């Protein structure tokens, strides 16, 4: 999102309170959504729950194309449409809901750096495994991605998507990597996160921030999603403090919430190992 668009969104957003009818759109949960989109969607849902903003989750086969940026998830609030975590955080802030207000400038810069790390490492690794690992691509990603479409459009669209992601991998220099190197990158990323987290409940001690939402979204999805092999989940499981971090956020923001308000917005998922 451009700076001008961002400014525009935050100006308009400030005028109205958060409506009850706010909706988050994502691809079909059972048949279509892929690891990376599922992780991003969970991160946004977690962030909104941490802010205490109600959201209904709606699955649409064309969610990706409905999104103004072409990426899922996106939220429809009032007559505003905002996609991806970064702009959604800005949008919520404009409406007076922020998790990072208590941080000083140094901490905020640090948070941004870690968020970039997660996006550059974990998200890219997820995309790499989905589309560049041939067995995962042919057994899971392509069939799931194209499930809403009729023959022969299903093949056209899934190969087009694969080609796009591979082009992106080429551009950022990941095309030459093999699966082992990608797992190694994931491990290093988790190592860094684990060290930063230490024994604190959240990354910046007592208060959750958008970084916590993002890390939880990715790690929890990696841990609970069945892939062609368990190697990726195993890399994360090596870090016990990250595991308990995921467990804690799930307990606090999903299990309890669901118990309190046998909610309209339920995120059903597997539980942690």
């Amino acid at each position, binding site marked *: 999102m451009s700076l001008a*668009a961002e400014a525009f969104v935050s100006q308009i957003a400030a005028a109205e309170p958060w409506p009850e009818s706010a909706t988050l759109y994502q691809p079909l949960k059972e048949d279509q959504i892929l690891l990376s989109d599922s992780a991003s969607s969970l991160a946004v849902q977690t962030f909104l729950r941490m802010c205490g903003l109600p959201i209904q989750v709606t699955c*649409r*086969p*064309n969610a*990706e*194309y*409905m999104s*103004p940026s072409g990426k899922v998830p996106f939220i*429809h609030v009032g*007559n505003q*449409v905002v996609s991806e975590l970064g702009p959604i955080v800005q949008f919520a802030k404009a409406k007076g809901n922020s998790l990072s207000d208590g941080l000083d400038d140094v901490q905020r810069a640090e948070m941004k750096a870690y968020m970039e790390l997660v996006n550059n490492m974990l998200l890219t690794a997820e995309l790499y495994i989905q589309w560049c690992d041939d067995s995962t691509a042919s057994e899971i990603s392509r069939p799931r991605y194209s499930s*809403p*479409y*009729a*023959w022969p*459009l299903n093949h*056209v*669209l899934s190969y087009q998507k694969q080609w796009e992601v591979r082009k992106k991998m080429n551009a950022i220099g990941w095309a030459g990597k093999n699966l082992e190197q990608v797992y190694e990158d994931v491990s290093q990323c988790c190592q860094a996160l684990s060290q930063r987290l230490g024994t604190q409940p959240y990354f910046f001690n007592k208060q959750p921030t958008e970084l916590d939402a993002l890390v939880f979204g990715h790690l929890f999805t990696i841990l609970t999603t069945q892939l062609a092999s368990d190697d990726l989940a195993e890399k994360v499981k090596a870090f016990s403090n990250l595991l308990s971090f995921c467990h804690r956020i799930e307990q606090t923001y999903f299990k309890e919430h669901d118990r309190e308000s046998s909610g309209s917005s339920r995120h059903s998922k597997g539980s942690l190992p």
Partner: protein
Amino acid sequence: MGTVHARSMDPLPMQGPELGVQADDMDLGEPDREEKQEVLENKDVVVQRVHIDGLGRTKEDILTYEIADVFRAKSLIDVMKKSHEARQKLLRMGIFRQVEVVIDTAEGADAVPNGLDVTFEVKEMRRMTGSYNTMVGNNEGSMVLGLKLPNVFGRAEKMTFQFSYGTKETSYGLSFFKPQPGHFERNFSLNLYKVTGQFPWSSVRETDKGISTEISFPIWRTNHTLKWEGVWRELGCLARTASFAVREESGHSLKSSLSHAMVIDTRNSSILPRKGALLKINQELAGYSGGDVTFLKEDFEIQLNKTLFWDSVLSTSLWGGMLLPLGDKPSSIADRFYLGGPTSVRGFSMYSIGPQSEGDYLGGEAYWAGGVHLYTPLPFRPGRGGFGDLFRTHFFLNAGNLCNLNYGEGPRAHLSKLAECIRWSYGAGIVLRLGNIARLELNYCIPMGVQSGDRICDGVQFGAGIRFL
């Protein structure tokens, strides 16, 4: 190219010259020219040979069908008439730039005194012709390159390729056309295309990539077209501010449809006709041949024209259509009907009638529109017999309605729904005919029956198009 071959064609066996030759004509052989001069006008003549000069890659067999009638001529007048018809037929095939007819007395060893030779001197089209245009419109400029290969395989097949490169969108189309030899109206065509359209009244951008095959054939006075079309459609929002109803329609769909069109056209001209009628019925069934879009669509168009006093023409027309979504999916914004604008219900903005969401018109599943026009020549008839004849003044009354139907309610409820909230308008203006394909209109319109949400164009409205209510 460039070399000109002369080929003689043997007459068809059925109409062989021998059949018409009388025995007593055979022994006329005086060398004196004076005596050979005869008045052939009322006499029986025999067309002995037909030559076609100037053939290069054209195959002879398709031409024999077109010129066969010339051999049936029995008098000189007949020969001239039939030759003229044959010339028209040859030109219609679109493979010759020029066709000239020369009728001469027969020469050669087997010539008979009342025998004639007809020679068609033709000039073939170039193997490939190209065109280059620039277009401006719809907030976009584009450059259109066209390539045409007339007569690719020598039997009037035509291959055309068009490529349009615009400031916003590129489109292309490749088509192959093949007529049945001897029956030019029966033809087959195959098209491959990619078209991108921007529809600001709906805030929609649509990209279609498709393939279609088509067979056209006449039955009695009607023309039929059977078509199969497979098209991959991608819908998107034109702007970030597009309404959510339009955003929900974004994405890919695959339509495979069979359609049938029937046309009866007895008008003397398709733009500004003076007499005759037009009936067009079109039906499309999507989904049963694949794809993920299923619907049945019917629409029709009727136009009647009658010349009244002082060269004025009264023209009435009626359009209507219905879209029935089959299966459980609702209809798509790309398939629904739109109404309004300077070419349909005048006085309203382009396609700005009926269901809408935040100013984006969503179209309707049923519509009708009718119009009555009185066309008269310009007052005081300036430029009569020339430029002035391209213009007409007209007075019009248009009406129409567009809505969505609840198909569970039955026909009575549908009719009452289509009859309530009728939009109508009246006014007058000037019409300019552009060739025989398009027309321009400048009208003063007064819209009536405006419903909330409709966008009107009160006063002067300018329109250009090829299809008019």
